[in-house]
Protein backbone atom coordinates (compact mmCIF):
# COMPACT_ATOMS: atom_id res chain seq x y z
CA UNK A 1 0.00 0.00 0.00
CA UNK A 2 2.52 2.49 -1.13
CA UNK A 3 0.42 5.35 -2.36
CA UNK A 4 -3.14 5.26 -1.03
CA UNK A 5 -3.65 6.68 2.47
CA UNK A 6 -6.00 4.71 4.75
CA UNK A 7 -8.50 7.54 5.02
CA UNK A 8 -9.24 7.30 1.28
CA UNK A 9 -10.24 3.66 1.50
CA UNK A 10 -13.99 4.12 1.30
CA UNK A 11 -16.29 1.97 -0.87
CA UNK A 12 -15.41 3.82 -4.08
CA UNK A 13 -11.71 3.66 -3.27
CA UNK A 14 -11.88 -0.08 -2.60
CA UNK A 15 -13.79 -0.64 -5.84
CA UNK A 16 -11.12 1.28 -7.73
CA UNK A 17 -8.36 -0.77 -6.10
CA UNK A 18 -10.22 -3.98 -6.89
CA UNK A 19 -10.74 -3.03 -10.51
CA UNK A 20 -7.05 -2.24 -10.90
CA UNK A 21 -5.97 -5.55 -9.34
CA UNK A 22 -8.14 -7.71 -11.58
CA UNK A 23 -5.38 -8.79 -13.94
CA UNK A 24 -2.81 -9.32 -11.23
CA UNK A 25 -3.59 -13.00 -10.71
CA UNK A 26 -3.97 -15.39 -13.60
CA UNK A 27 -3.39 -18.94 -14.77
CA UNK A 28 0.04 -20.49 -14.64
CA UNK A 29 1.90 -21.12 -17.87
CA UNK A 30 1.47 -24.88 -17.72
CA UNK A 31 -2.30 -24.84 -17.31
CA UNK A 32 -3.03 -24.61 -21.05
CA UNK A 33 -0.88 -27.58 -22.10
CA UNK A 34 -2.20 -29.48 -19.09
CA UNK A 35 -5.79 -28.96 -20.20
CA UNK A 36 -5.07 -29.83 -23.83
CA UNK A 37 -3.14 -32.94 -22.84
CA UNK A 38 -5.86 -34.07 -20.45
CA UNK A 39 -8.53 -33.66 -23.12
CA UNK A 40 -6.42 -35.57 -25.63
CA UNK A 41 -5.79 -38.34 -23.13
CA UNK A 42 -9.46 -38.66 -22.23
CA UNK A 43 -10.51 -38.61 -25.88
CA UNK A 44 -8.10 -41.39 -26.82
CA UNK A 45 -9.08 -43.28 -23.69
CA UNK A 46 -12.73 -42.89 -24.63
CA UNK A 47 -12.10 -44.25 -28.14
CA UNK A 48 -10.17 -47.18 -26.70
CA UNK A 49 -12.96 -47.82 -24.21
CA UNK A 50 -15.49 -47.66 -27.05
CA UNK A 51 -13.55 -50.20 -29.09
CA UNK A 52 -13.21 -52.45 -26.07
CA UNK A 53 -16.95 -52.23 -25.38
CA UNK A 54 -17.70 -53.01 -29.01
CA UNK A 55 -15.44 -56.07 -28.99
CA UNK A 56 -16.82 -57.35 -25.70
CA UNK A 57 -20.37 -56.76 -26.94
CA UNK A 58 -19.70 -58.75 -30.08
CA UNK A 59 -18.17 -61.57 -28.07
CA UNK A 60 -21.14 -61.58 -25.71
CA UNK A 61 -23.59 -61.65 -28.63
CA UNK A 62 -21.70 -64.57 -30.16
CA UNK A 63 -21.76 -66.48 -26.88
CA UNK A 64 -25.48 -65.87 -26.47
CA UNK A 65 -26.16 -66.96 -30.04
CA UNK A 66 -24.17 -70.17 -29.64
CA UNK A 67 -25.77 -71.00 -26.30
CA UNK A 68 -29.28 -70.39 -27.66
CA UNK A 69 -28.58 -72.60 -30.65
CA UNK A 70 -27.13 -75.32 -28.44
CA UNK A 71 -30.08 -75.23 -26.07
CA UNK A 72 -32.52 -75.44 -28.99
CA UNK A 73 -30.68 -78.45 -30.41
CA UNK A 74 -30.48 -80.22 -27.05
CA UNK A 75 -34.17 -79.52 -26.46
CA UNK A 76 -35.14 -81.05 -29.80
CA UNK A 77 -32.91 -84.04 -29.12
CA UNK A 78 -34.31 -84.60 -25.63
CA UNK A 79 -37.89 -84.38 -26.90
CA UNK A 80 -37.29 -86.93 -29.66
CA UNK A 81 -37.50 -90.70 -29.20
CA UNK A 82 -34.25 -92.65 -29.36
CA UNK A 83 -34.89 -93.82 -32.93
CA UNK A 84 -35.62 -90.25 -33.99
CA UNK A 85 -32.43 -89.17 -32.34
CA UNK A 86 -30.50 -91.79 -34.30
CA UNK A 87 -32.21 -90.74 -37.48
CA UNK A 88 -31.42 -87.09 -36.81
CA UNK A 89 -27.84 -87.89 -36.12
CA UNK A 90 -27.57 -89.96 -39.26
CA UNK A 91 -29.27 -87.27 -41.29
CA UNK A 92 -26.99 -84.69 -39.76
CA UNK A 93 -23.90 -86.72 -40.57
CA UNK A 94 -25.27 -87.32 -44.03
CA UNK A 95 -25.76 -83.62 -44.52
CA UNK A 96 -22.29 -83.00 -43.22
CA UNK A 97 -20.83 -85.51 -45.57
CA UNK A 98 -22.77 -84.07 -48.43
CA UNK A 99 -21.62 -80.59 -47.59
CA UNK A 100 -18.03 -81.68 -47.22
CA UNK A 101 -18.21 -83.80 -50.36
CA UNK A 102 -17.10 -87.00 -48.69
CA UNK A 103 -18.00 -90.44 -50.00
CA UNK A 104 -19.03 -93.63 -48.13
CA UNK A 105 -22.55 -93.41 -49.50
CA UNK A 106 -22.74 -97.20 -49.61
CA UNK A 107 -22.61 -97.43 -45.85
CA UNK A 108 -25.26 -94.77 -45.47
CA UNK A 109 -27.46 -96.43 -48.09
CA UNK A 110 -27.06 -99.77 -46.38
CA UNK A 111 -27.93 -98.28 -43.05
CA UNK A 112 -31.04 -96.66 -44.43
CA UNK A 113 -32.02 -99.88 -46.20
CA UNK A 114 -31.82 -101.72 -42.88
CA UNK A 115 -33.82 -99.03 -41.21
CA UNK A 116 -36.48 -99.21 -43.92
CA UNK A 117 -36.72 -102.99 -43.56
CA UNK A 118 -37.08 -102.62 -39.82
CA UNK A 119 -39.73 -99.97 -40.24
CA UNK A 120 -41.55 -102.14 -42.77
CA UNK A 121 -41.35 -105.17 -40.54
CA UNK A 122 -42.73 -103.40 -37.49
CA UNK A 123 -45.50 -101.62 -39.34
CA UNK A 124 -48.89 -103.02 -38.17
CA UNK A 125 -50.85 -104.92 -40.84
CA UNK A 126 -47.95 -105.52 -43.14
CA UNK A 127 -47.34 -108.99 -44.73
CA UNK A 128 -44.06 -109.53 -43.07
CA UNK A 129 -45.57 -108.81 -39.71
CA UNK A 130 -48.57 -111.18 -40.37
CA UNK A 131 -46.45 -114.04 -41.59
CA UNK A 132 -44.08 -113.60 -38.79
CA UNK A 133 -47.01 -113.49 -36.37
CA UNK A 134 -48.75 -116.58 -37.86
CA UNK A 135 -45.50 -118.47 -38.05
CA UNK A 136 -44.75 -117.76 -34.48
CA UNK A 137 -48.31 -118.72 -33.47
CA UNK A 138 -48.06 -122.06 -35.27
CA UNK A 139 -44.74 -122.82 -33.80
CA UNK A 140 -46.06 -121.86 -30.39
CA UNK A 141 -49.02 -124.28 -30.81
CA UNK A 142 -46.72 -127.04 -31.97
CA UNK A 143 -44.46 -126.29 -29.11
CA UNK A 144 -47.31 -126.59 -26.66
CA UNK A 145 -48.76 -129.82 -28.11
CA UNK A 146 -45.94 -131.76 -29.68
CA UNK A 147 -43.68 -132.06 -26.75
CA UNK A 148 -46.53 -133.41 -24.72
CA UNK A 149 -47.29 -135.98 -27.39
CA UNK A 150 -43.70 -136.79 -27.95
CA UNK A 151 -43.08 -136.85 -24.31
CA UNK A 152 -46.08 -139.12 -23.60
CA UNK A 153 -45.25 -141.20 -26.61
CA UNK A 154 -41.69 -141.41 -25.68
CA UNK A 155 -42.47 -142.26 -22.16
CA UNK A 156 -45.07 -144.88 -23.18
CA UNK A 157 -42.85 -146.45 -25.77
CA UNK A 158 -39.99 -146.50 -23.35
CA UNK A 159 -42.34 -147.98 -20.77
CA UNK A 160 -43.67 -150.46 -23.30
CA UNK A 161 -40.22 -151.39 -24.38
CA UNK A 162 -39.05 -151.77 -20.86
CA UNK A 163 -42.10 -153.64 -19.63
CA UNK A 164 -41.51 -156.99 -21.41
CA UNK A 165 -37.92 -156.87 -20.53
CA UNK A 166 -38.68 -156.12 -16.99
CA UNK A 167 -41.42 -158.59 -16.96
CA UNK A 168 -39.31 -161.08 -18.90
CA UNK A 169 -36.43 -160.70 -16.66
CA UNK A 170 -38.45 -160.92 -13.53
Amino acid sequence: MSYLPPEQLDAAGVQALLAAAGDYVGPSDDLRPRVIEEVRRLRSGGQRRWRLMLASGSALAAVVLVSVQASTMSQSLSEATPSQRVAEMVAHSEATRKSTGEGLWALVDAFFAVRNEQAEAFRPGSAATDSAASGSAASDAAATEAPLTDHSLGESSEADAQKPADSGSF
Partner: protein
Amino acid sequence: MAEMPFHDRVHLLTDQLGLPGVDVLGGLFDLTAHRLVRLAVAITRNQYDGEDAVQAVMTRIALRPEPLRGAQAPWAYLLRMVRNEALLIARKKKRWITTTHSITDLVTRRRVDELEQEDTHRAVWSALRTLPPAQAEVVVLKTWEGMTFAEIAELLDESPNTVASRYQYGLQKLADRLQKAAAEAMGERALRNVAPNRGAPRQGASNRGGHR
Protein backbone atom coordinates in the same frame (compact mmCIF):
# COMPACT_ATOMS: atom_id res chain seq x y z
CA MET B 1 -12.68 -11.18 -34.31
CA ALA B 2 -10.73 -8.68 -32.24
CA GLU B 3 -13.51 -6.08 -32.47
CA MET B 4 -16.19 -8.46 -31.31
CA PRO B 5 -17.44 -8.09 -27.74
CA PHE B 6 -16.20 -10.68 -25.30
CA HIS B 7 -19.55 -12.43 -24.88
CA ASP B 8 -20.00 -12.76 -28.64
CA ARG B 9 -16.54 -14.26 -29.01
CA VAL B 10 -17.30 -16.80 -26.33
CA HIS B 11 -20.59 -17.58 -28.06
CA LEU B 12 -18.85 -18.01 -31.40
CA LEU B 13 -16.26 -20.39 -29.98
CA THR B 14 -18.73 -22.45 -28.00
CA ASP B 15 -20.82 -22.87 -31.15
CA GLN B 16 -17.80 -24.49 -32.80
CA LEU B 17 -16.95 -26.75 -29.86
CA GLY B 18 -17.08 -30.40 -30.73
CA LEU B 19 -17.05 -29.90 -34.49
CA PRO B 20 -14.84 -32.51 -36.15
CA GLY B 21 -11.46 -31.28 -37.24
CA VAL B 22 -11.77 -27.97 -35.43
CA ASP B 23 -9.73 -27.47 -32.29
CA VAL B 24 -11.60 -24.68 -30.57
CA LEU B 25 -10.64 -25.52 -27.03
CA GLY B 26 -7.29 -23.72 -27.23
CA GLY B 27 -8.97 -20.54 -28.43
CA LEU B 28 -11.64 -20.74 -25.76
CA PHE B 29 -8.98 -21.31 -23.12
CA ASP B 30 -6.95 -18.30 -24.28
CA LEU B 31 -10.04 -16.16 -24.22
CA THR B 32 -11.52 -17.17 -20.89
CA ALA B 33 -8.90 -18.88 -18.70
CA HIS B 34 -7.70 -15.72 -17.01
CA ARG B 35 -11.17 -14.71 -15.89
CA LEU B 36 -12.17 -18.22 -14.91
CA VAL B 37 -9.02 -18.82 -12.87
CA ARG B 38 -9.53 -15.47 -11.17
CA LEU B 39 -13.00 -16.47 -10.04
CA ALA B 40 -11.95 -19.98 -9.04
CA VAL B 41 -8.97 -18.72 -7.04
CA ALA B 42 -11.20 -16.23 -5.23
CA ILE B 43 -13.52 -19.07 -4.22
CA THR B 44 -10.97 -21.75 -3.39
CA ARG B 45 -8.38 -19.27 -2.04
CA ASN B 46 -5.72 -21.37 -3.66
CA GLN B 47 -4.05 -21.17 -7.06
CA TYR B 48 -3.76 -24.90 -7.62
CA ASP B 49 -7.30 -25.66 -6.59
CA GLY B 50 -8.59 -22.84 -8.77
CA GLU B 51 -6.65 -24.14 -11.74
CA ASP B 52 -7.89 -27.64 -11.05
CA ALA B 53 -11.45 -26.35 -11.18
CA VAL B 54 -10.85 -24.61 -14.50
CA GLN B 55 -9.10 -27.67 -15.91
CA ALA B 56 -11.98 -29.92 -14.90
CA VAL B 57 -14.51 -27.61 -16.53
CA MET B 58 -12.50 -27.20 -19.73
CA THR B 59 -12.07 -30.94 -19.99
CA ARG B 60 -15.76 -31.53 -19.45
CA ILE B 61 -16.88 -29.04 -22.08
CA ALA B 62 -14.35 -30.42 -24.55
CA LEU B 63 -15.72 -33.93 -24.13
CA ARG B 64 -19.39 -32.96 -23.84
CA PRO B 65 -19.92 -29.55 -25.42
CA GLU B 66 -23.67 -29.90 -25.98
CA PRO B 67 -24.87 -28.30 -22.71
CA LEU B 68 -22.63 -25.27 -23.16
CA ARG B 69 -23.55 -24.97 -26.85
CA GLY B 70 -27.21 -25.12 -25.97
CA ALA B 71 -26.98 -22.45 -23.28
CA GLN B 72 -28.51 -19.07 -24.05
CA ALA B 73 -25.67 -17.25 -22.29
CA PRO B 74 -22.56 -19.44 -22.67
CA TRP B 75 -20.30 -17.15 -20.67
CA ALA B 76 -22.65 -17.14 -17.68
CA TYR B 77 -22.99 -20.90 -18.02
CA LEU B 78 -19.21 -21.28 -18.07
CA LEU B 79 -18.86 -19.08 -15.00
CA ARG B 80 -21.47 -21.14 -13.21
CA MET B 81 -19.68 -24.37 -14.09
CA VAL B 82 -16.37 -23.07 -12.77
CA ARG B 83 -18.03 -21.69 -9.66
CA ASN B 84 -19.71 -25.02 -8.90
CA GLU B 85 -16.50 -26.95 -9.51
CA ALA B 86 -14.51 -24.54 -7.33
CA LEU B 87 -17.04 -24.85 -4.53
CA LEU B 88 -16.87 -28.62 -4.82
CA ILE B 89 -13.09 -28.59 -4.55
CA ALA B 90 -13.18 -26.08 -1.71
CA ARG B 91 -15.65 -28.28 0.15
CA LYS B 92 -13.46 -31.32 -0.31
CA LYS B 93 -10.35 -29.52 0.88
CA LYS B 94 -12.04 -27.53 3.59
CA ARG B 95 -9.76 -28.91 6.26
CA TRP B 96 -6.64 -27.69 4.53
CA ILE B 97 -7.84 -24.24 3.61
CA THR B 98 -6.46 -21.70 5.97
CA THR B 99 -7.00 -18.01 5.75
CA THR B 100 -3.65 -16.51 5.05
CA HIS B 101 -2.39 -13.06 4.33
CA SER B 102 0.32 -14.40 2.09
CA ILE B 103 -0.26 -14.69 -1.63
CA THR B 104 2.99 -16.43 -2.45
CA ASP B 105 1.17 -19.38 -4.04
CA LEU B 106 -0.64 -17.15 -6.54
CA VAL B 107 0.63 -16.77 -10.07
CA THR B 108 0.87 -13.03 -10.50
CA ARG B 109 1.52 -10.92 -13.54
CA ARG B 110 2.55 -7.30 -13.54
CA ARG B 111 3.11 -4.90 -16.32
CA VAL B 112 6.11 -2.64 -16.32
CA ASP B 113 3.96 0.46 -15.85
CA GLU B 114 2.28 -1.14 -12.82
CA LEU B 115 5.39 -1.90 -10.81
CA GLU B 116 4.56 0.82 -8.33
CA GLN B 117 1.09 -0.58 -7.81
CA GLU B 118 2.21 -4.13 -7.11
CA ASP B 119 2.07 -3.69 -3.35
CA THR B 120 -1.50 -2.46 -3.67
CA HIS B 121 -2.48 -5.40 -5.87
CA ARG B 122 -0.96 -7.82 -3.41
CA ALA B 123 -2.81 -6.20 -0.55
CA VAL B 124 -6.09 -6.36 -2.48
CA TRP B 125 -5.69 -10.03 -3.31
CA SER B 126 -4.53 -10.83 0.19
CA ALA B 127 -7.65 -9.14 1.59
CA LEU B 128 -9.88 -10.84 -0.98
CA ARG B 129 -8.67 -14.26 0.11
CA THR B 130 -9.83 -13.60 3.63
CA LEU B 131 -13.44 -13.13 2.52
CA PRO B 132 -15.91 -16.01 2.71
CA PRO B 133 -16.38 -17.61 -0.71
CA ALA B 134 -19.98 -16.44 -0.94
CA GLN B 135 -18.88 -12.80 -0.64
CA ALA B 136 -15.71 -13.20 -2.66
CA GLU B 137 -17.53 -14.62 -5.68
CA VAL B 138 -20.03 -11.76 -5.68
CA VAL B 139 -17.23 -9.21 -5.46
CA VAL B 140 -15.39 -10.87 -8.35
CA LEU B 141 -18.47 -11.13 -10.55
CA LYS B 142 -19.56 -7.58 -9.84
CA THR B 143 -16.19 -5.88 -10.05
CA TRP B 144 -14.27 -7.84 -12.68
CA GLU B 145 -17.02 -9.35 -14.76
CA GLY B 146 -19.15 -6.21 -14.70
CA MET B 147 -22.33 -8.14 -14.01
CA THR B 148 -25.43 -6.59 -12.49
CA PHE B 149 -26.87 -7.86 -9.24
CA ALA B 150 -29.75 -9.41 -11.17
CA GLU B 151 -27.34 -11.31 -13.44
CA ILE B 152 -25.26 -12.47 -10.49
CA ALA B 153 -28.42 -13.53 -8.66
CA GLU B 154 -29.50 -15.60 -11.65
CA LEU B 155 -26.06 -17.17 -11.92
CA LEU B 156 -25.91 -18.02 -8.22
CA ASP B 157 -29.58 -18.95 -7.80
CA GLU B 158 -29.98 -16.30 -5.14
CA SER B 159 -32.17 -13.26 -4.78
CA PRO B 160 -30.75 -9.92 -5.96
CA ASN B 161 -31.10 -8.51 -2.44
CA THR B 162 -28.98 -11.32 -0.99
CA VAL B 163 -26.36 -10.78 -3.64
CA ALA B 164 -26.32 -7.03 -3.05
CA SER B 165 -25.95 -7.42 0.69
CA ARG B 166 -23.12 -9.92 0.25
CA TYR B 167 -21.39 -7.42 -2.00
CA GLN B 168 -21.79 -4.63 0.56
CA TYR B 169 -20.50 -6.80 3.40
CA GLY B 170 -17.63 -7.97 1.25
CA LEU B 171 -16.62 -4.45 0.30
CA GLN B 172 -16.81 -3.35 3.94
CA LYS B 173 -14.51 -6.17 5.03
CA LEU B 174 -12.13 -5.44 2.21
CA ALA B 175 -12.02 -1.77 3.18
CA ASP B 176 -11.25 -2.67 6.81
CA ARG B 177 -8.47 -5.05 5.85
CA LEU B 178 -6.98 -2.71 3.31
CA GLN B 179 -6.98 0.10 5.86
CA LYS B 180 -5.12 -2.12 8.30
CA ALA B 181 -2.68 -3.13 5.58
CA ALA B 182 -2.14 0.49 4.64
CA ALA B 183 -1.52 1.44 8.24
CA GLU B 184 0.97 -1.39 8.65
CA ALA B 185 2.69 -0.40 5.43
CA MET B 186 2.99 3.20 6.56
CA GLY B 187 4.39 2.08 9.91
CA GLU B 188 6.94 -0.16 8.23
CA ARG B 189 7.94 2.63 5.89
CA ALA B 190 8.41 4.96 8.82
CA LEU B 191 10.56 2.36 10.54
CA ARG B 192 12.60 1.87 7.40
CA ASN B 193 13.21 5.60 7.16
CA VAL B 194 14.39 5.68 10.76
CA ALA B 195 16.46 2.50 10.68
CA PRO B 196 19.21 3.63 8.26
CA ASN B 197 19.95 6.68 10.45
CA ARG B 198 20.29 4.45 13.49
CA GLY B 199 22.27 1.78 11.73
CA ALA B 200 24.86 4.02 10.08
CA PRO B 201 27.22 4.45 13.06
CA ARG B 202 27.06 0.75 13.80
CA GLN B 203 28.02 -0.05 10.23
CA GLY B 204 30.88 2.37 10.49
CA ALA B 205 32.02 0.71 13.69
CA SER B 206 31.99 -2.72 12.07
CA ASN B 207 33.98 -1.37 9.16
CA ARG B 208 36.49 -0.04 11.57
CA GLY B 209 36.62 -3.41 13.21
CA GLY B 210 37.22 -4.94 9.79
CA HIS B 211 40.23 -2.74 9.24
CA ARG B 212 41.81 -4.04 12.35
